[in-house]
């Protein structure tokens, strides 16, 4: 199980990397953490003439709060994100979801940019980016642009990134007061890709009605998806009056998840409902707690 030959470059500057990507286009592949790409190369399920290793570009690493946005360099390791105080404070969902990614040895290498660009439909980070309404900043020799996570994820292992483009950073908006989050997944074993996973982010108003809600499932389609009809149905509704079980059932009834050797599509659809219910329930509880002054003080 050995990779086919390739040429390799490890630029230290973004511009160098962009020049290489521009030169080789489809024949090049960005090597980020490598935790998904290297197995694909080893199994010869993928091959490229040129790998552009961006691990030596310092500018792609780091976590910074800029206004109300947490800007995370694409090459920031998952292990760093998992432990980072800023992330825990301003994007707790991201920190919590990170623990579901593989195992600690994987998270020591895996990066946020690599994971999102890989667009595995069962992976955590693309789904969390969607849940939190994150954007990615990308660049090519022609310039920079920002892409909303919902626009970025096109289908399984496919994004709207051009081959010449490099993902520079992930921009995660900070959700305000009285926000609560939840993430959970059902997997065959700890650390496996999810059979079905999901995440929710909600904000409650003073009257405990839903001011804002994003609910995302992954593993149920060719990419992570938002349950827009559910989000619309609960918007403005008092939390206590929601029949979450029924809403979750309705919101997942039309899903047509894929089948594979680990689980049938019917199973994935079936458990999507209780999973969705659980996510909302947890997110609401946490949102209320986040608004509770005694809880705030305790933190």
């Amino acid at each position: 199980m050995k990779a086919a030959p390739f040429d390799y470059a490890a630029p230290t500057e973004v511009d160098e990397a962009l020049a290489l990507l521009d030169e080789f286009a489809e024949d090049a592949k960005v090597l980020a953490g490598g935790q998904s790409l290297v197995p694909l190369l080893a199994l010869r399920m993928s091959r490229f003439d040129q790998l552009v290793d961006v691990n030596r570009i310092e500018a792609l690493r780091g976590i910074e709060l800029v206004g109300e946005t947490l800007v995370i360099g694409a090459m920031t390791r998952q292990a760093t994100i998992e432990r980072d105080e800023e992330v825990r404070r301003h994007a707790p969902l991201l920190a919590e979801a990170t623990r579901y990614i593989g195992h600690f040895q994987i998270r020591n290498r895996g990066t946020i940019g690599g994971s999102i660009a890989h667009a595995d439909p069962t992976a955590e980070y693309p789904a969390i980016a969607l849940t939190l309404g994150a954007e990615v900043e990308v660049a090519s020799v022609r310039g920079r642009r920002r892409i909303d996570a919902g626009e970025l994820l096109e289908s399984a292992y496919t994004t709207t990134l051009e081959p010449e483009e490099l993902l520079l950073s992930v921009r995660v908006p900070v959700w305000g007061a009285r926000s609560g989050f939840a993430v959970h997944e059902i997997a065959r074993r700890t650390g496996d890709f999810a059979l079905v996973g999901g995440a929710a982010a909600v904000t409650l108003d003073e009257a405990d009605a839903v001011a804002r809600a994003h609910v995302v499932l992954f593993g149920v389609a060719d990419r992570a998806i938002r349950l827009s009809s559910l989000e619309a149905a609960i918007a403005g509704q008092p939390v206590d009056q929601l029949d979450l079980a029924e809403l979750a059932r309705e919101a997942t009834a039309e899903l047509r998840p894929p089948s594979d050797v680990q689980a049938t599509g019917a199973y994935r659809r079936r458990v999507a409902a209780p999973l969705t219910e659980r996510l909302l329930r947890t997110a609401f509880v946490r949102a209320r707690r986040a608004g509770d002054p005694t809880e705030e003080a305790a933190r």
Partner: protein
Amino acid sequence: MSTVEKPSAARFVGARVQRREDPRLLSGHGQYIDDVRLPGMLHATFVRSPLARARIVAIDLEHALAVPGVVAIWDGSALNGDAATPLWDWAGEGTPFPEVRALAEGDVRFAGDPVAIVIARDRYVAEDAAELVDVEYEPLQAVVGRELAEASTGRAHDGIDTNVAWSAASPTDPALEAAFAASAHVITETFRQQRHVNVPMEPRGLVAHWERGAEQLTVYASSQNPHQDREYFARVMGLPEHHVRVIMRDVGGGFGQKIFRTREETAVALASRRLGRPVKWIEDRQENLMAANHARDEQMTLRVGVDADGVITAIHASHLADVGAYPLMPAMMPGFMALEVLPGPYRFARYGWAGKSVFTNTSGISAYRGPWMMETVAREIMMDVVAREIGVDPAEIRRRNVIQTEDLPYTTPTGREYDRISPAQTLEAALEEIGYERFREEQARARAEGRYLGLGISTYIEPTAGAQGPTGIEAATVRVEPSGKVNVLMGTGSHGHSLETTMVQVVADQLGVPIEDVRLLQGDTAVSPYGGGTAGSRSAVIAGGVARISAIKLREKVLELAGHLLEAAAADLEIEDGTITVKGSPGSSIAFADVARIAYYDPSRLPEGMEPGLESTSRYSAPPATYANSTQVCTCEVDVATGEVRLLDYVVGEDCGVMINPMVVEGQIAGGVAQGIGGALLEHLAYDETGNPLAITFKDYLLPTTEDVPDIRYVHVETPSNTPGGHKGVGEGGAIGAPAAIVNAVADALAPLGVRVTSQPLSPDRVLAMIDDARSA
């Protein structure tokens, strides 16, 4: 009941002695097959069929041969003729068998079938070239599916006009039918077990080195039995046995997969002879999952008659096995063994059976830890089915049927003779340890809260150390070197089960020397006496037995010589910690090392007629089988919203006779249980209907992890066997008992929902589907 004398100074046998293997393995200095490097060594890889069944129309090597660094590429037509005989042949009356050749020739018969061997300067280059070998296939209908094979219009093999590899049944027995007719209840159910792979962490591999001039083949093997390998390579390569040497150093697990040498290993040896250079092949994980032998893939239908109290009156068992394309053992083996062992721990007189094995276009079946264990799966799940059906507690129904001490000796309906077993005791011990009554109360409380807890029991008798043919005997040479240090030479095949420690414990006890002064040399046919290697839980019984016999024989000589030197009767001497002393006269002693030195260097001081040196070789022919017994009990919780199963508690009560090293015994049990957990919950080498394997990476073939195997507790009952050390085998029992215990626990948890569990693995989607089916029924 013990009639076996404990060793005179049992300081080591029975103790949790730390392993002698560990310092080298823990510091990175083991020597596994991929660590072997020889000058001029080349690397092999295989071109494998992507199709389950196809005609090979053409093979074009041109582009592949042009890759720089490629030394040779041979397909079947070029290489197979170098073999002197078919690789193995289990054909017999009514049991057809395909001609087994190193590489596919003319057609391919499973996805992964080796079509060509590529030899190159390194593995990277070899794989580059393998990709460029252009094979044109004409697809044929593949035979896939255990239950579909017999009626398939396709044929798994050219030249064999049936897919039935073996079929047999017990004679019609009117007494059996009468017993069923007289039974208060007769219950029939079919139990299915999916295809597994052994998955040793070190895949297959070898370095074959043909030494020109000496005309000798030296094979560095990842094996369980070097002497049988020597015999194999000698036969297949047409060499005299003394021109073959097999060396196995550290082996990264086998679990049955490394008992038999395989087609790829043969191709590598043939290639080495052609090239006159050492050739290494290290199987990668994808190859291991796709093309190394598979296991299980079987089903058993039981018809069980019981009286009104749940006492078994009659059983009929019918077994069906898928043995793949090229099984490594006779096609009858899975079925015959399972059917023969089925009566297990229960008393009943009337038994009938039928068995059938089918060829399919899938990877061949071979041994995997307890290769007959379908009997325990079917029988023990059935016991719970019967118990539930007639309203008897599952522990109670076993109590009513289990063989008691006063029943011994006891002969099963299949003629197995039990003595010195304790199945009733291990059953009770396990139930007590898990807290059976307490759990039932907890379960009731949980049910009231809408939580589903369950408990499963699995009771069995394990035939261990089956002794026949090449595995019937074992030899040990115990040699005290002139310095008094001891080398023990054996034909064992340790691949992780601690023989370097346990054999040394046995010998050190008998010789009365410090354990550090004894070392086991094994795994080299040029060094060790012929031995059967490892299979069938035989090492403790047969190897441990002969180590003891040989050490006792040598001890007698040591004492005779020491007595002569000390002018005392040998019977009045004792050896302790390397010193031989006249009992009661501490002043009158001689160091073990001095006796050794004199034995070698000072023949004039030996008694009249004594041969110089201190060495003894013994061979031991073991009884046909030695019976261990066990009960496994576990508890679980099932999440009925997601179908997830979580094991909560796990207890194994077992009797493997005199334990040489309880730490090692528990390690063997735990490893087996973990494999059983894998089989019950996770592992499945699935094929699609075209014969395409669907789980050929570790992302898809799921081994249990630290999170899937709970804490295991053990209760030991020690009933010595009638073998020299009083030991019984313990290698396979953990794996045999676990799946039924887990299935029963899940079924018990879901019993209020009317779920009956009869197949594995219990993946979340299957569990949920069973719940849905039961609810809609």
